[in-house]
């Protein structure tokens, strides 16, 4: 398919942390096909490890 001329419709997002997820969601929302690639077995990244976030003190997950 790579030979196909013209633009691709996919976007590769490397990293499944809060930033990557955000990028992936926005891309998907505007109708792009997103490949969200994460090295570890699960999405979440550092944010998932935090207990709460400042300054609003709400839960991180």
């Amino acid at each position: 398919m790579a030979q196909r001329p013209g633009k691709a419709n996919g976007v590769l997002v490397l990293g499944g942390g809060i930033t990557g997820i955000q990028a992936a969601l926005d891309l998907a929302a505007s109708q792009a096909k997103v490949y969200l690639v994460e090295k570890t077995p699960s999405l979440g990244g550092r944010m998932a490890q935090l207990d709460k976030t400042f300054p609003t003190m709400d839960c991180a997950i």
Partner: protein
Amino acid sequence: MAVRTQQAKKKTKKEFIPNIVVFACNWCSYAGADNAGTNRMQHSPHFRVIRTMCSGRVTPGFVLKAFKLGADGVLVSGCHFGDCHYIFGNYKAVEQFEKTKGLVKTLGLDLKRVRLEWVSAAEGVRWANLIDEFVGQIAELGPSPLNHKPKYG
């Protein structure tokens, strides 16, 4: 964890089994209860959850109806301040709950029977502790004067 199972058991050994209604908001408290589940936080089973989208949805009417029908305690649980999915829904919940408390007090029911609490989606532990503590408290208080067929076991 072992400790908690003990607690749960201890509660069930109690004579009187309280009849408790819990209103939990969808975004924080209900999720917090789920979190207690994912973490297998054992806690007392003697409560029933009714899910609402926001704690601000809970009217004095719902709570009074519960008591009229013989509930021994009612817990309303929402998101921490600043954490509400609907910005200020939990503040509205406070306003409504103030009315509820006033009515419950005037009715001569022990104010310990109603509670407004905040539990976030990550606070499974808090949820489990809260439930154990509230169920314990109601068990101490005994059946509500309006509970015509209290359960024992």
